[in-house]
């Protein structure tokens, strides 16, 4: 690999200094599971790498009054094994547990998944469905929040400016009546880029009726997006195998609208039916789709 400069800030103040001097040939380094490979494959030629692994303020998961904050340096393993995340945000726990392999999850970070700017990024879909925001820091020492939906530029364009870094991912708590789920389809069961991924958040009342729904889909075009038509199908309905069938049909239509004429359209419009079934099982249980409720 070519000669480059490494900066190793030990805290947020030192990070601000590094960001102040950063330009378009600087790269932020989290776990390195995308960046180091891209440098080695000569897809990227940074002059400067800012190594975030020494900034301890980025390594915590904090429960706040109305939200959870996941530090930019928290690994995917730490996220998916966190009991609070598993209980309150299963979609995020499921997404992080299905990225790569154990070795990759032990290093990779959510912030890196967003910063790497892939349209197939697995953590983006549940974060959008969960209304997550990014807490950012720039070279002027300014902190600010951006909704994940706004932060993602799409089409593989860089999501971050050269002089800014993600500090935390902030996710508001859901009502106790809400649940969430994520599913991905790849060419393998593990260590696979998603060909299709999706996240659903539902609010179900005491009559077992869906009173609110959010459906987000990824790997279906330049940017993960919200499927309003799928949400309308779920609203005010009870989850059962008939609803699953309607959900599958509307998402097939959604695929046709999202990627008309693409080579993968025929595959994805069928594969999404399987994804729907898995999402329903994760949200409502297997007995729901067997028609036992």
């Amino acid at each position, binding site marked *: *690999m*070519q*000669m*480059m*400069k*490494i*900066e*190793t800030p030990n805290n947020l103040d030192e990070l601000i200094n590094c960001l102040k001097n950063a330009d378009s040939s600087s790269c932020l*380094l989290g*776990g*390195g*599971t995308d960046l*180091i*490979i891209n*440098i*080695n*494959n000569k897809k990227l030629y940074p*002059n*400067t*790498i800012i*190594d975030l*692994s*020494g900034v301890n303020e980025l390594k915590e998961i904090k429960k706040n009054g109305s939200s959870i904050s996941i530090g930019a340096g928290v690994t995917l*393993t730490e996220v998916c094994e966190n009991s609070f995340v598993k209980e309150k945000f299963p979609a995020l726990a499921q997404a992080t547990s299905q990225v*790569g*392999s*154990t*070795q*990759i999850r*032990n*290093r990779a970070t959510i912030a890196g998944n967003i910063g790497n700017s892939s349209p197939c990024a697995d953590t983006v879909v549940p974060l959008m469905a969960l209304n997550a925001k990014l807490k950012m820091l720039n070279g002027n020492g300014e902190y600010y929040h951006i909704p994940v939906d706004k932060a993602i530029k799409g089409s593989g364009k860089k999501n971050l400016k050269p002089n800014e870094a993600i500090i935390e991912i902030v996710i508001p708590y859901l009502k106790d009546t809400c649940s969430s789920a994520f599913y991905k389809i790849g060419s393998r*069961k*593990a*260590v696979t880029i998603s060909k299709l991924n999706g996240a659903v958040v539902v609010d179900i009342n005491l009559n077992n009726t869906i009173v609110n729904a959010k459906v987000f889909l990824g790997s279906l075009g330049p940017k993960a997006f919200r499927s309003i038509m799928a949400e309308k199908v779920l609203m005010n309905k009870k989850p059962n195998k008939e609803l699953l069938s309607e959900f599958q049909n509307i998402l097939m239509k959604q695929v046709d609208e999202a990627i008309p004429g693409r080579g993968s359209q025929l595959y994805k419009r069928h594969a999404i039916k399987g994804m729907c079934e898995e999402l329903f099982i994760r949200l409502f249980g297997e007995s729901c789709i067997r028609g036992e409720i």
Partner: protein
Amino acid sequence: MEGGNQVELNMIVNGKKHNIDINPSDRLLDVLRDQLGLTSVKEGCGEGECGACTVIMNGDAVNSCTVLAIQARNKEIITTEGLEKNGELDELQKSFIRNGAIQCGFCTPGMLMSCKALLMKNPYPKEEEIRRAIEGNLCRCTGYTNIVKAVKDVVIR
């Protein structure tokens, strides 16, 4: 740290402290294999997919081809060379041999480190946990069955 110049790296490898000069762009794989002569650590793909370069860093299995060496500062690294103690192979290594979990041997160091990392965290893993621990380690020879059997054999004993 100056660009183009060497930087200092302090880390503990297989129980021994090292203070070495590295290039800023070196990966942990490059330092372990080429500078420290720990040739159990192999570059199978350089893309974090095959797991042949797996080492244990502060208790976690990692692909050393995706770790920039400087990120290993002040950390403890274990490679296959560090499993042997006083000339005797680790129980896991003995179990791999006993259970036919090695054919060409290329994946074996990485496979051992993934399995060792699992057992360090979870001494009594179920089969699905063993399989999940090695999903990032490719083997073209064994079909994985004997590898899983070898780990189960250590658990039973």
